[in-house]
């Protein structure tokens, strides 16, 4: 249920804030929407990957002769056959390597006419390994005698810094959080707490559609790639650079069956399809199975926080000193970016002047971590907030009051990911907090730290709260074109794929609103990189503000040009004109009017251009309240109720926004505190949660009561005053659940996820 809070914005819109059907709604409900595995090309082959049985090994010999002879097999590739293309930051991962670094690592690639032939070919590849010792724990991996995954990364430490975040002033951007004087801060504190917390089960965001790619070489220098992408330009530019700028890459965004960030780490898979297609001389589609999706594709970062926190009775935080260790598995795509953003995000929810907080990014022999909704901030806060809670508890501070005091306010500053200092321009989030608390009934339900809200026999109920915020709502560049036709149809050219947020439709609404034409008249171009201008991608909830701004600017630019033409015929200043449903009229004399067709002439298209440059001075915010019931006889924790509270400035599409906020139960979010986890067996290096029965996810019959409280206090973003919020939906929940369980059972509960075995152990029954 979407509960709208007080609306400060007095603007009434035709489409903005009004529920409208999505542009792709009919395609989706009829099954016509084309996901990557639905795309077929003539002569297409099926690709399969031979995977390593060892967590760490060197390939001593590999023989593919028998596999190549199998009728129907068109290409078999090993590390000896592939170009020296590498991915990662800094680049380190080859398409195929002589070394394998996790159980499931790619050893060879096969392209064949059918899946069954490809599977039989995999069986015919003969590999001899020299097995090396493996390491799975962060702390073990950092030891001097630990097995080394990469020669270029001693002690398995991945260097920090993101080249494209930084500047000449601050190369590499934000890499650690150091400001003020922590020792002085601890002296000023009324209480100092030190502890360690782990968000260490690297859960899987697990979109329903497994990742896949379809590659087709058009010429020796041009390759087309179909991807379930979130950012077709991120993919295109990355591929272009890692193929050493010798190949033109065109990315076609397919309807994406969920990503939640994870398909941003699709480059290794895309390269596998690309090299197979080149070797076979035919298009190759490589789609992972769900088993591969669970064991050989993007997982959350493992996060360990050691921190010492100084706090005063009034809830102000005087100092934070500590270390943030991250485990990225065998491959690092954007860990440093997640660190930079995470370090920025923690400042948005904690007003502290003295920091000494240092991260370390570490490789281990398991499947890779990568971009996922929450982007570093979730991993940090899931481990950090419980330490904060324990500090608050020492002073008996109500956590909601704490967050009200500590959430960033307009005029306050923070370092963002580029290392620069920004001054916030956001509205007052405490209003959303108050409203959320009221709807949740926080005053009545909160009984104090480690005190249950209610006790019914063996069942105990507890409440908890968590927060998150992200200043990437205005990250990165966006460009758009708007084409106006004389028959009042408008085409929006913007490189935005559809992965569930409904952004393609929302951007059309913005165009329709600016140009005041029927929404059906607005079309949006297919998300192909060769026909759209540059646009970074759908990440960090930037769609509403960043992409929206470019789109609005483009629509306004087109409108300006249209009015220029009309003003000559209507004999007035363009500033005196308005338009409605394809009719341009003079504001103070509406009877003087002409159609778009008359204004432009039939042999013309008007093209408007819009561009948005990064703005890190705005952030979104979300607070999540949870109510959890613990059965102390069986250890079963049930999520009863969730209330999300936020302020988005202006809702663009109510059902889409609500869907995004409901998403807090998915994408490895709240449920990573209840039952979601990836289980890695250290004796074999294998991930045991290798199917959808063993990996636990929320089912239809298990839905908690869920309310979303959304205030609309205009942000200084663009003409609609809106910012996005979907990306942060998953992050406040996990620590909130641990707080609720701790309160329910009357003692601190310290493990993710809170499965019956762990709760019974915490209760001393095991």
């Amino acid at each position, binding site marked *: 249920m979407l509960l709208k809070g007080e609306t400060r914005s007095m603007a009434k819109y035709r489409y903005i804030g009004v*529920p409208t*059907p*999505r542009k*792709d*709604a*009919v395609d*989706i*409900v*009829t*099954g*016509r*929407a*084309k*996901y990557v*595995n*639905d795309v077929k090309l003539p002569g297409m082959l099926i690709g399969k990957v031979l995977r390593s049985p060892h967590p760490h090994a060197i390939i001593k010999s590999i023989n593919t002769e028998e596999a190549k002879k*199998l*009728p129907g097999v068109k290409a078999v590739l090993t590390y000896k056959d592939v170009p020296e293309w590498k991915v990662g930051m800094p680049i380190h991962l080859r398409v195929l390597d002589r070394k394998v670094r996790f159980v499931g690592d790619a050893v060879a690639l096969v392209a064949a006419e059918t899946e*069954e*032939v490809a599977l*039989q070919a995999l*069986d015919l590849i003969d590999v001899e390994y020299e097995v090396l010792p493996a390491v799975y724990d962060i702390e073990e991996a950092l030891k001097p005698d630990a097995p080394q995954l990469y020669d270029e990364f001693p002690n398995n430490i991945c260097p920090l810094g993101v080249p494209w975040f930084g500047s000449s002033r601050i190369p590499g951007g934000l890499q650690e959080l150091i400001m003020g004087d922590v020792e002085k801060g601890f002296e000023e504190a009324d209480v100092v707490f030190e502890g360690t917390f782990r968000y260490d089960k690297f859960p899987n*965001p*697990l*979109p*329903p*559609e*497994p990742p896949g790619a379809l590659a087709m070489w058009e010429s020796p220098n041009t390759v087309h790639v179909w991807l379930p992408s979130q950012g077709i330009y991120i993919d295109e530019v990355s591929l272009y650079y890692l193929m050493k700028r010798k190949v033109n890459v065109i990315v076609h965004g397919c*309807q*994406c*069956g*969920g*990503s*939640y960030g994870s398909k941003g780490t699709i480059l290794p898979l895309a390269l596998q399809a690309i090299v197979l297609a080149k070797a076979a001389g035919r298009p190759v589609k490589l789609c992972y199975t*769900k088993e591969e999706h669970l064991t050989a594709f993007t997982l959350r970062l493992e996060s360990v926080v050691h921190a010492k926190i100084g706090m005063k009775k009034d809830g102000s935080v005087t100092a934070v000193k500590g270390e943030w260790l991250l485990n990225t598995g065998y491959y690092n795509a954007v860990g440093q970016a997640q660190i930079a953003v995470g370090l920025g995000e923690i400042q948005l929810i904690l007003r502290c002047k003295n920091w000494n907080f240092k991260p370390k990014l570490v490789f281990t022999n398991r499947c890779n971590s990568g971009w996922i909704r929450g982007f570093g901030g979730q991993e940090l806060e899931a481990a950090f907030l419980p330490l904060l809670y324990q500090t608050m508890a020492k002073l008996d501070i109500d956590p909601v009051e704490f967050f009200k005091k500590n959430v960033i306010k307009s005029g306050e500053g923070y370092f963002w990911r580029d290392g620069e200092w920004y001054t916030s321009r956001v509205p007052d989030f405490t209003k959303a907090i108050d409203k959320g608390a009221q709807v949740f009934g926080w005053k009545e339900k909160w009984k104090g730290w480690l005190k249950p809200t209610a006790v019914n026999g063996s069942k105990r109920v507890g409440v908890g709260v968590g927060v998150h915020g992200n200043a990437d709502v205005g990250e990165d560049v966006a460009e758009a074109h708007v084409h106006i036709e004389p028959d009042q149809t408008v085409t929006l050219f913007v490189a935005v794929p*559809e*992965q*569930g*947020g*409904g952004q393609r439709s929302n951007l059309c609404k913005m165009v329709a609103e600016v140009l005041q034409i029927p929404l059906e008249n607005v079309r949006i171009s297919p998300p192909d990189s060769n026909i759209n201008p540059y646009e970074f991608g759908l990440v960090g909830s930037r769609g509403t503000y960043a992409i929206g701004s470019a789109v609005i600017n483009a629509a306004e630019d087109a409108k300006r040009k249209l009015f220029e033409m009309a003003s000559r015929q209507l004999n007035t200043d363009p500033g005196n004109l308005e338009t409605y449903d394809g009719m341009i009229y003079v504001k103070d004399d509406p009877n003087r009017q002409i159609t778009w067709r008359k204004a432009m002439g039939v042999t013309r298209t008007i093209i408007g251009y819009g561009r948005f440059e990064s703005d890190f001075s705005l952030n979104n915010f979300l607070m999540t309240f949870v109510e959890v019931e613990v059965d102390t006889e069986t250890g079963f924790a049930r999520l009863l109720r969730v209330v999300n509270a936020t302020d988005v400035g202006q809702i663009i*599409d109510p*059902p*889409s926004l*609500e*869907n995004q906020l*409901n*998403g*807090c*139960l*998915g*994408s490895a979010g709240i449920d990573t505190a209840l039952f979601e986890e990836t289980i890695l067996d250290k004796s074999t290096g294998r991930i045991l949660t290798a*199917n*959808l*029965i063993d990996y636990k*996810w*929320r089912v*239809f*019959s298990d*839905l908690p009561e*869920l309310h979303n409280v959304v205030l609309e206090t205009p942000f200084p973003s663009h003409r609609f005053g809106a910012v996005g919020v979907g990306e942060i939906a998953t992050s406040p929940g996990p620590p909130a659940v641990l707080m609720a369980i701790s309160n329910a059972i009357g003692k601190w509960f310290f493990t993710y996820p809170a499965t019956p075995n762990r709760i019974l152990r915490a209760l001393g029954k095991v």
Partner: protein
Amino acid sequence: MKNYERELNEAAKPGGAANKLKEFSVPSSTIKLIVNREPYELLVGKDVYPWHTLAYTLREKLGLTGTKIGCDSGACGACTVLMDGKPVLSCLILTIECDGKSITTIEGLGDPVSGKLDPIQQAFVNHTAFQCGFCTPGIIMSLKALLNKNPNPAVEDVKRALAGHYCRCISHYHVLKAVVDVIKRGNEKHGKV
């Protein structure tokens, strides 16, 4: 009873995988299916092989890609189709065992000529009861079967009927809203309140 001696001997001959596949390429029988009221005749050994699942046949041979393959092991429900009116997992069904069966896929709902959608599809459009849409065709098929059997189910019955559907974007709440809407309209149509 058929004599399997010959086949056993053939299978036991040395020659490895190549011979194995040649064995299967001799067209033998036909499988007659009705899919979305259209009859199809599939030749075993040419259009369909014993190890092809119904999901594979629908998507790759009949071009009906509306039915999605998510986990391919029966745990996500994305491949749900109706067989003789009941929701089943097409990724776990062998096409050659479907002789004589009547199958409905998502493409079989609504009228492609007039563009009119099935009431369930229309309600999903009206309520944006999806996000990425991957699970949507499967969910709609289960709902179709449920509402055909019981046009007025309780919300708990709807949740149970959808228990086999993996939706990760969490469109569940809007799906339930859409279903409540369909039930209400159905009741109004039949004069029920």
